């Protein structure tokens, strides 16, 4: 039974096993390799994508759970000519080192800011559990605060509090 879902705004019908994790369908069937395989057990977060706006770990999410839903990957977090505030802050703070975990990290942070527009350090600690082996965490934290500050400076307050930032 094929599975129908929307990926980065485009509808797809995938004739794949319902238990196949979304990660491998994205990477191999749809060629979206920005989403990474890190552990396969939802422990590291390198595979984080948005499912109907929520951050999910695609390496353990069966395709069957995506039926009729909307998936957004790092490739479509924002248009190339108008990057997401998190991406802008990531460049400003020169966050990535090897970069392998950063797609998942950025997707997790974008989802965090969508429901918690100005997280405290404690909230960041509690909500952001992605692993970065290079040790970019100090810059991740600084960049989150910078993204919040940038949005406060450029977006009207009521819009910033909503979910409108995920273009």
């Amino acid at each position, binding site marked *: 039974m094929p599975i129908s879902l929307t990926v980065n705004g485009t509808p797809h019908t995938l004739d794949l096993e319902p238990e196949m994790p979304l990660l491998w369908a994205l990477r191999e069937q749809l060629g979206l390799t*920005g989403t990474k395989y890190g552990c396969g*057990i939802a422990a590291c977060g390198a595979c984080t994508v948005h499912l109907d706006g929520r951050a999910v770990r695609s390496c353990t999410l069966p395709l069957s759970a995506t039926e009729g839903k909307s998936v957004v*990957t*790092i490739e479509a977090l924002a248009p190339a000519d108008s990057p997401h505030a998190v991406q802008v802050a990531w460049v400003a703070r*020169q966050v990535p080192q090897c*970069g392998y975990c950063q797609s998942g990290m950025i997707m997790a942070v974008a989802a965090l800011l969508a429901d918690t527009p100005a997280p405290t350090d404690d909230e960041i600690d509690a909500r952001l559990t992605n692993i970065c082996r290079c*040790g*970019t965490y100090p*810059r991740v934290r600084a960049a989150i605060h910078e993204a919040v500050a940038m949005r406060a400076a450029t977006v009207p307050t009521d819009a910033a509090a909503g979910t409108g930032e995920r273009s």
Partner: protein
Amino acid sequence: MNKWTRRTFIGAGTIAGGGFLLGVAGFALAPARHAVVEPAGPGPGQLTTWIRINADGRITILVPHCDMGQGTLSALGMMAADELDADWAQVEVIEAPGVDTYANGYLARTITGDHVPAVMARGFDYGMYKVADWIGLMVTGGSTAVRSTGEFGMRVAGAAARQMLVDAAAQQWGVPARECQASQSVVRHAASGRQATYGQLAEAASHLKVPTSPTLKGPDAFSLRRTSAPRLDIASKVNGRATYGIDVSLPDMLYAAIDIAPVQGGTLQSVDPAPAMALRGVKKVVSLPNAVAVVADSYWRARQALAALQPVYTDAGHGQVSSASIFAAFDAAIGPLPEMPADATRVVRAEYRVPFLAHASMEPLSCTAQVDDTGARIWAGVQDPLNARTVAAKALGIDRERVQLTNHLLGGSFGRRLPYTFDYIELGVQVAQQMSPTPVKTIWSRETDMQHDYYRPAALSRHAASLDASGRPLIVRVAFTGDGDGEALAMPYAIGKTESTQKESAHHVRLGAWRSVASSQHGFFKESFIDELAHEAKADPCDYRRGLLSTSPRALAVLERAATLAGWGTPLPEGEGRGIALCDSFGSIVAEVAHVRVDAAGVLRVLAVDAVVDCGDVISPDGATAQVEGGILFGLSAALMSAITIEEGRVAQRNFRDYPMPRIKDTPRIRVEFVRSDAPLGGLGEPAVPPIAPAVANAIFAATGVRVRALPFTQTPLRKA
């Protein structure tokens, strides 16, 4: 310190469209007062660095190193571009292809043997990877890229190209070259008001005689170095476009999942392929001497099918080995704690131990290969493309010239993808050979990656010291197992007499180079023991070290700055403490002060780390800071939580649940400062790792009175019962 001179072989040529191409060949270095050694001249294995200037002004700098997150391409590009006086916005830096022309092992030869600047003599010694073995390789490792390729390759290339461009302009204008100024990719003649861009001058420059010993800038003239110019690789790493080895895709490519004999050295005895072949998408079950792989039309299908198999392996006679038995053998090999003279009055003895460690790079190992009648093509991420080609050629039984390798970004590495650790290439090409001519991407699961690493050695180290009446060490003796080389006693401190003995205690666990190599364990041993001596001497740990550094002014300056930065000596609440550690590795001196809290239940939290570094000059301050931050967190993983243990001959840990990693909640506030000195450039990828574990251990002692002598700290109750 001798003054070092650079002699180079440089070749230049014109490229289509009127551009300019310059290559710098083998280097010979010698103290200025000695004869300069002339290399035989450019040839295979000697060209190292290229600069290309197109007529439109675009500049391409080729760097013979890989990027695994350490920012090497940007830093080396900056070193060349600064000497070139290039407009950084027009510069592209790319990794040189993995062909002999770019072998950088030649560079290492300039700093071995009689020509080793003293400060660089250590840290090149990579345990089993002696630098002599690296000749003819194209290695990124040992924190060497900036201080060897950069200092002796990139700078010379940039300076030579600049001189040729200026000479070209001077000739065109009929003015003396010394009256011309280069800046931001433009040459100007102030008196006449004339100017020309590098692009306009490129072709003319390419016809000029190449300077054999171009003048390098003095530090005061640096215009790009010492600035935090943005790294060139960041943009692609925030939008998913960066392509790592695991991301390679080829038409009609198949995927393989692989299972390797769980006990190192074991072989595949039997496997029934039927359960896998019955599953959707499966093409073949490939039996190899020590592994079985399933090839399918998707990695997930291959992996499901692999899980359906029940391969039987031998254990090569190691099935009874455990971490406990390995440490028991260490204990027997080392024997009792080192003896001290009978008349020694104040003797301190201590024993430390560390476990095996996995690299656990975020990108699991992978190898994509296509094998056909013409040879093999490989796409992967490696720290040495040349040795990887050799390994593949040997596995396939073909000539190395018939193996091509396209290197990709490495999703971390930390020493896992060095020469002589290319099992993932060897297995990958063997699987692809079975499917010839179809390309196959073999991906190691996280579990396979973790259980088949080349591990940081487990080690046991026994220390003894005698102190004089004032508490200063008269004798320090160390006996240890595990890798060590010169690191066991390499300390900046004035100690009357030091002796170390490395004991052999062989086991079957594969060992490799883990970020900071032998310093990762010996830094912990040495700087914990010095702290114990300070305690015996009833001295403040920082004062005690200071008192032993009268002949090491660089180390003293680093120590004192770190203490000041961290507010050493200011009061802390109950249950909190500071610890300091000072390590000299890979040519750089690093002091770190850890501030910890241990609560009533014995739960440890590292609150803050202040790090001060003397790596000579700093090329890219922001990139350098990132390396120090990352090194601290890498070392914290080993200090706080990570350990590989052996049970029934095999690695017990499988994934991040039982080999945990620090997360953002575990991350202390980190402050990094650099002390600029006139010392030769030091490495930065590794030197921040060794001091953090002892700094935290010493802070725990200050906070609780509990001395932690084993890593990770989770093994030791941090509150006295």
